[in-house]
């Protein structure tokens, strides 16, 4: 079961870590590395904290080392690749 989709992830990031003014987060960003999206490891950890809290899931350290939104969503969703619909 997919608990998190890309729009929700970008919303959580935007709300809890801000958004780089020079980046369009609404585009096709699944495979763009987080640093290019303006997010560092702290931003990810901040998002992980919120996801764990609001979605009632336990995330292991792999989530924090995800390099792209696709990797992150795959970890969060227990191995399930983000589908086109969820993007």
């Amino acid at each position, binding site marked *: 079961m997919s608990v998190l989709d890309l729009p929700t992830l970008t919303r959580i990031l935007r709300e809890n870590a801000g958004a780089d003014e020079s980046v369009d987060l609404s585009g096709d960003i699944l495979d763009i590395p987080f640093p290019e999206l303006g997010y*560092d*490891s*702290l931003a990810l*950890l*901040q998002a992980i*904290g919120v996801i764990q809290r609001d979605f009632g899931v336990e995330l292991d*350290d792999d989530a*924090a080392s995800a390099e792209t939104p696709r990797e992150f969503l795959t970890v969060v969703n227990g191995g399930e690749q983000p589908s086109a619909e969820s993007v």
Partner: protein
Amino acid sequence: MVITGLGAVAPGGIGIKAYWELLTAGRSATRTITHYDPSPFRSRVAAEVDFDPVREGLSPQEIRRLDRAAQFAVVAAREALADSGLAVAALDPGRIGTTLGSAVGCTTSLEQEYVVVSDGGRHWEVDHGYAVRDLYRHFVPSSMAVEVARLAGAEGPAAVVSTGCTSGLDALGHAAELIREGSVDVMVAGATEAPISPITSACFDAIHATTPRNDDPEHASRPFDRTRNGLVLGEGSAVLMLEELEHARRRGARIYAEIAGFASRCNAYHMTGLKADGVEMAAAITAAMDEARLGPDSLDYINAHGSSTKMNDRHETAAFKVSLGEHAYRTPVSSIKSMIGHSLGAIGALEIAACALAMEHSTVPPTANLHEPDPDCDLDYVPLQARVQRTDAVLSVGSGFGGFQSAMVLARPDRRMP
């Protein structure tokens, strides 16, 4: 600028003698947290000091007035004063200065008081009627420098230096500078920290800085080991007496070491992250070595920051290679955080105290718990066992949140090249 007195309050031992015994035994003082119930937290281990303020000679009013960190500092300062043999009452009070490093100040008392005035976080408009009279002393940590200054009757420049985890080194560097520029003859200088409290656990949990190795607390801090996975919080204090060399010689003082060089740099990169190349720390090392007029080949020992996080230990290893070249491979490096944990702002002073003792005893403390070296950390980290060897010139480094990188070089005063 020379070190003529030492005092320490450390996990596993209060007083210089117990501290040095712990370090040379290679024994870890890390354990499951007892200061509060750690069960909600991801990381539940720390290096705590078994500290009974009454037994350490603090008065009832001192105990009421002082945060745990300030209590540590007072005990360490008293030992350092006595150790130095300085008759401070005979000195000009205006020529004695004080610097004390601390990253998070009186955080333990502040959290305890917050819980009361907010009634467990129920109220945003906290009730000042429940505040202790000394709340403001906890609120601005400069109060801790005042307490230490009073012990020595010091009326010269005084300050708390608060540069995160380099606070301890920076406070000592600042003190050396005050002596060098002629503002003072004597400095009471050191650092203190008592950060083991729920809010510290919570925020380090949130950034995965502390280790989740809860089932094996004695071996949880393992700098440079392949299996390391985070730092172990510590607490404690070290205070040093510093004097100008001739001032110390005139009174026939025992001289542990000269502070021969100090430098700090910023990475201007990230509040908590480090770039793998370590160039800013390397620049601090090079500047400190230059000031000491020592070449990389003359270093006998490096006391590493070695915090046991994945990132730090690689960053630092790279910094040693950049700054010392081939000599990085030939110089013993160890991290005493493997034994006493990472006491944030205090650790730099505790490490310099350890370096001074290493020079006094010609012995290098080991890196405990280092069984499987990380292939990316390929230097001589003095695993498990202390090493008897020449220690005439040593380097100690620190790295902290905010991007601060500091390096200090100690040398025997007679060894320094003209």
